[in-house]
């Protein structure tokens, strides 16, 4: 392609969490490399028209307008972020014409135990029926996410989609902060308040015991409502405090989810690494970040934290190494990945 390619984003801009954050970061890169348009779909997943604040800021910064529910969308490449926005729909009145359509799978197709996470076939089917393109590609966002996509496709051979060879990862351009020179047993976790984001209570108790100097739980709305009495937990509802203030309270990010759910990427982990914290999570979630996240079981958390508190130098070494690993998820790395996708030959109809 000799001229600037055109990229049309097709999104539901009302996703409250990681999807909108990832798109916001991504737009800053893609708008430098291509002519970008943003098409918003008012899917049945959300009500109202409130665009996620992080996305709204980016769109304003870039001078991009959101085009709502345009029936016909045409571009060299159409990027559809998080197809789950179509999961409650029987029809989708869009017409997409593109050289290639890329569906970025922000949510895992399968949950642990190979259980379908949403009606994937329906969502992909709606896109497939609406899109006329030389190639239709699924773009996983992490190794774990990729595995759920491949496993699902293996279980559903009727769905003939390509899978992008490289991960369409979340850009993690968070400000890098120096690790604490004298870390203490100050633990915390932050997430949206959904049930999937929290492990069983007994694991929460293991991760946030009363002997810790601090246990800060940001996004613990459900515990505030009716939850167990844990006076040693400092529970804040989602977005109740600034994220920087939260990070100032902790030295360790201890993040486990419900065993029936897994992060597809784990932006919160990257965010904590960038903030200079040692991050501890289950092996599956940690795998997206290699050695940068300490893989553990909840029963091992105490010992790990005890070790780092006793060895501040090791704490510092670990954090710095982990922060270096974040370069793999930089805007620059994303730009390189996108360039490869854009320049790859697209000659065979999907």
């Amino acid at each position, binding site marked *: 392609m000799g001229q600037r390619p055109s990229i049309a984003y097709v999104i539901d801009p009302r996703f409250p969490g990681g999807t909108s954050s990832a798109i916001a970061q991504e737009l800053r890169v893609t708008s430098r490399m291509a002519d970008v348009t943003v098409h918003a779909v008012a899917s049945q997943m959300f009500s109202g028209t409130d665009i996620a604040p992080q996305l709204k800021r980016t769109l304003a910064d870039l001078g991009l307008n959101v085009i709502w529910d345009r029936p016909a969308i045409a571009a060299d490449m159409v990027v559809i972020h998080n197809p789950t926005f179509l999961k409650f729909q029987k029809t989708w009145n869009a017409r997409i014409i593109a050289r290639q359509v890329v569906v970025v799978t922000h949510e895992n197709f399968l949950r642990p135990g190979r*259980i*379908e996470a949403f009606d994937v076939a329906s969502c992909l089917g709606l896109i497939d029926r609406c899109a006329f393109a030389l190639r239709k590609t699924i773009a996983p966002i992490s190794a774990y996410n990729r595995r759920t996509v491949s496993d699902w496709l293996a279980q559903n051979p009727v769905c003939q989609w390509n899978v992008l060879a490289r991960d369409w990862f979340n850009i993690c351009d968070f400000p890098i902060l120096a690790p604490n020179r004298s870390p203490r047993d100050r633990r915390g976790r932050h997430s949206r308040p959904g049930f999937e984001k929290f492990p069983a209570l007994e694991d929460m108790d293991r991760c946030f015991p009363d002997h810790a100097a601090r246990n800060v739980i940001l996004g613990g709305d459900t515990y505030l409502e009716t939850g167990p009495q844990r006076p040693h937990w400092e529970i804040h509802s989602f977005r109740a405090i600034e994220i920087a203030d939260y990070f100032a309270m902790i030295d360790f990010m201890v993040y486990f989810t419900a065993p029936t759910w897994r992060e597809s990427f784990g932006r919160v982990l990257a965010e904590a690494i960038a903030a200079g914290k040692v991050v501890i999570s289950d092996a599956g979630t940690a795998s997206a970040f290699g050695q940068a996240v300490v893989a553990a079981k909840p029963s091992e958390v105490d010992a790990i934290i005890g070790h780092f508190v006793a060895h501040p130098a090791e704490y510092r070494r670990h954090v710095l190494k982990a922060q270096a690993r974040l370069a793999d998820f930089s805007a620059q790395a994303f730009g390189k990945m996108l360039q490869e996708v854009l320049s790859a030959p697209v000659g065979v109809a999907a």
Partner: protein
Amino acid sequence: MILVEAGECSERSHDAKVLFALQLARRGYAVAIDDKGIPQALDRNQKFEIAPLLVEIPPEALTHLVIIGAENIDNETLLRLRDHALGPKVKIFCVGRFADLQALVGSRAKIAYALGREPQMLDLTDAEIKPLMDGTVAPLMAVGSSERPPSAVPQLFVYLPPEMLDEPMTLPILGAMDQLAGFRLNLIVTGKSKEQIRATRHEYLSVFSYTEISLTALADMADIVVFFGDSVPGEKMAALALDMMRSSKVVIDGTTRAALVSRGAPALRGPQDLAALPNYLDQTVLVNCAEIGRQAGISAWLKNHAIERLEQRLGLTPPDGPGPAKRKAKTLFVPTNGNGLGHAQRCTLIAAAMENPSDCAFAAFKSCVSLVASKGFAALPLVQRSDEHPEEFANDLLNYLRLQRSLRRGDRLVFDGGYVFDSIYRTIMEKGLEAYWIRRGLWQAGQMSPVSLDRQKAFRRVIVPDEAFGELNAAPGWESNVFHVGPIVQQLPVKSRGPARLKDRLRRHLNVEFDELVVTMLGGGVAADRSAQLQTLCNLFERRASCLHLILVWPGSKVHPGVYAWKNSRAVQTKNALALCQAADLVISAAGYNSFHEILFHGIPAIFVPQMAAYMDDQERRALAASERGLSGTILASEMLLLEREVAAFLDGGKAAEIRRNLKKAELPQPGNRAAAQLIEGLCDG
């Protein structure tokens, strides 16, 4: 044990949850509902319905968690699910009608996140087999009712929507139907409609609000059910229809939308017009009841709605153990009201007159337990109402649970009291008990509660122990199940030397010398404060030399401390008041049914001081009936100044002896103890 949950925390879901849990319980499973999931604003009937399901669940006893209505899961439910510490062996099932795959996987995911475990999904949606209703929370499965043989005269239950009662001819038609001999008419309506009917001249109709008793009881009682209105009015009525069909009973679809028949259910398409119903029943249904039931029983649609299908998918097998240990059917006497001593005493007399008194037991308030025990009967203690309870019927809820556990189908329940409590009414209906109501007469105007009269329908027979004097007995009414018997009265043998010996014993025991013995029994003090009257009497007898004045109270009763200040008066706690009365030269007594009749039937000279309260029997009429015949004296509460003169007349003026002579000659009716017992035993038709 199976814990039943519903996806949404709402009153509708709660009702569905209870409905389904009770269906499982009828199949023999141990079932429970989490008390934390109960909506705040449950009414009285809902609380009675759910009470047996609220049990402690030992973690190791829980085998299944079944979430119904799982297509709609709300956050409140998820929060509670998260708090269940389910053992790894607990099987989790989500039952629902899922609109599509996304609805199913979405619900599954939400529950899996909250529980941290994967549930098994059970989608009841089946394009081939339509449910009886759309949008139900409960799975709506046919369980069937008990294997009661069809009634000799079929019990017809007609569901009427509120709007039908606004039509001017509805009640007159029902009034006319109520006179037909081919069936017994019962109505099922809303609570408000029931009130509406009660306020008309058709208040005699047998009416059930559809929350006042359980579905099981309704399905057991009914032989034919007819539905009018637009459609099936809710899940409970739909379940009733299913249970009736399953039991090969007749279900008639008179709905304007053919709500049952259009779904494929084996119901008869009946007339939509109430006026046409009697002839339809007469010409089409009653002559073919057995065949209609048989056809329903073999319906393929019904087989697809049988609870066994759901059980199979849930991996449940109804317990086929030995069940409750076999025991002889028993007759449980339940005397109630106030301290209940009079009711309890009467019941013990009837129980003692039964062929096999050893098959009789009691459920009684604490105040009566020792009386009952002293007569040789076991007593299950009931809880009395207290202002300390959070609700006025809290004690009755507990009594309901105790009665439920104590009784089973085939037992008899004999109630003696004025107000038929929910616990008693529900237990009779839900256990299908043969029930009898000992209902003393002489009520004061307006005293009999309309609720109690309405609940008379639960009793096979109402046994009215007559008063000694004809004018005190109500004229027999047109009710076919009300039977009159002679006065229920304790009868002690009259021993010629007995009184003298008893007096000697009293002299020795109390270490007093006396020539005349006066016994006072003014009552337990529930109805009125009798302390002033007692003081008057004590004062009076203090001034009589050589008089022993015994104030008799039941063991455990409170005695006013003032009476202990008198030399001639002694408070005596005794279970044997009648023997002391027999020895007395004069008895001063309230005119309660038992003491009044015991005094008359044992020829004891007495002055009656009637105890009056709005909620009591008319003691004044009773006392005056005796004194006007020269069989006693009567001093009303307003005439206490006359008491001294009357006592002097009895003890000094020869009136006591005259009364004794009159009583000896008096023609009193035969006691009805045995007749009442025979009516309960079914040995006579009254």
